[in-house]
């Protein structure tokens, strides 16, 4: 009974926070303009890479390379959006709306509240993803060869991937609790770490060896490789870093690294929120 109550309460927190996040994300403009804007950004980032390929390789750009990049770029939409969404919450609540102390002293589970706030951006990422796929199908020689048998594995790894980004978002949130506001810079930039490390637009094997080691510890890297293999229906992609590792093994690694990330995010979030409370900076504002 107590467990059911806790679950119900948690669901309520996530739901209200998601509602709030959506209101804040979507309420500022006409819905039509909002929709257009949701489309423009992913299209532009897709076009940047396409034109880089066109410039460097001309007509010789292989379908494998384009598919590799396209899947990475599409998955990155989720990474970027969710991380951006969650990491902005502290700044918004603390500096912009000045409500953070009222939320902090409420019995709300802060961890769940931030998860909830990230949902609005997940929806936006979903829309952007659809737009990106449609654009890709029109302009690029994309192959979608996923077999029916691969769908459950794909769905499971996709879910794990999304969950892992939420945990990373919480870690970023915990960091921002003890930091001053850095405008848009921080959220824009921090997802760049994953952009560079996880083989989003180039194979991990293009990185120096020491960076490859870091890459292969991040759940997003596994998620991307699994998605690429299942969508393209192949046992290995052009990324030599994963040659010799089976898809099943990648799924296990994704599951394990996500679990570790979850444990770390809980501990780190708790530690940083207590640090902010000890320092008395939960409700401070950056006045420059």
């Amino acid at each position, binding site marked *: 009974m107590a467990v059911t109550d806790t679950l119900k309460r948690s669901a309520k927190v996530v739901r209200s926070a998601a509602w709030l996040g959506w209101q804040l994300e979507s309420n500022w403009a006409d819905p039509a303009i909002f929709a257009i804007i949701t489309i423009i950004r992913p299209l532009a*980032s897709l076009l940047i890479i396409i034109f880089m390929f066109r410039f460097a390789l001309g007509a010789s750009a292989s379908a494998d390379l384009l598919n590799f990049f396209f899947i990475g770029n599409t998955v990155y939409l989720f990474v970027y959006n969710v991380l951006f969404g969650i990491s902005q919450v502290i700044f918004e609540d603390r500096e912009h709306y000045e409500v953070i102390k009222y939320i902090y002293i409420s019995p709300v589970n802060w961890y769940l509240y931030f998860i909830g706030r990230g949902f609005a951006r997940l929806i936006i990422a979903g829309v952007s993803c659809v737009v990106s796929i449609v654009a890709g199908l029109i302009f690029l020689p994309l192959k979608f060869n996923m077999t029916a048998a691969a769908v459950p594995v794909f769905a499971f790894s996709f879910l794990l991937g999304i969950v892992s980004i939420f945990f990373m978002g919480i870690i970023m949130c915990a960091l921002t609790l003890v930091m001053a506001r850095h405008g848009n810079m921080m959220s824009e930039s921090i997802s*760049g770490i994953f952009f560079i490390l996880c083989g989003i637009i180039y194979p991990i094997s293009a990185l120096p060896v020491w960076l490859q080691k870091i890459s292969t510890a991040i759940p997003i890297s596994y998620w991307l490789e699994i998605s690429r293999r299942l969508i393209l229906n192949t046992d290995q992609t052009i990324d030599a870093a994963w040659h010799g590792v089976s898809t099943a093994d990648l799924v296990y690694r994704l599951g394990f690294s996500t679990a570790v990330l979850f444990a770390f995010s809980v501990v780190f979030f708790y530690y940083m929120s207590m640090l902010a409370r000890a320092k008395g900076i939960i409700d401070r504002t950056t006045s420059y």
Partner: protein
Amino acid sequence: MRIIGVNREPSWLIFELFFPLLPICAFAFVYKSMNAPTDYLGFVILGGAMTAIWMNVLWGMAAQFFWERESGNLTLYMLCPMSTMAVLIGMAFGSAFSTFFRVIITFLIGKFLFGVTLHVASYFWLFVTFILTIAAVFSLGMMMASFFLIYGRDAWNILTVFMEPVFFMSGFYFPVKTLGYPLGALASLIPITLGLDSMRQLAFALGPETAFLPVKTEVAILVVLTVVYLAGAKYLLNKLEYLGRREGRLTLRWQ
């Protein structure tokens, strides 16, 4: 004030210097993974350095009125007997401190991580195009800042949303010639497009092969853009400040 503020929060070093360099490195790795010539990596490095300046103008100057309004300072600025344009330029120079470091570090990364080397055809014209690009970009930034006098979160979001399209259109990571002439001409309205194209032509051995327009033509267009945007900024700042005051939006906060 901005320099002092930035220095009192040491975490800026990570967020203002280190993290913005990551996407630049990522785009350089794209070319590397395609075994492209080193000059292509140089194109990205130069694009990345100019990104720092563009972002400074966008967030350090244009959008600064958004934060000033939220913190209640905008009203104080408006009450002071000083030019709004002077305030904006001051703000941009305030954050130029971190921008300068970022540009330097970008070039160092280019040199030492990716082995990029410069082959400068003319230092004089390189300097002229750089200065003109900065002047035109600042003028455009001031024009954009005027919109923050009456719009809040919506203007902020539009600015965020147009970041990638501007990166794409201006050829931050590939020569604008690749877009073709009609799109390239449209992109030339953003001063950084022609500035980048000229500087690539002047600083890299493979630059002239990827030229969109001759350097001197691009310089002439940059001069025109500077004058037009400066006049536009003056007109819009006055006009929108008046509108903001009439509609009471200068003090509308927490949007």
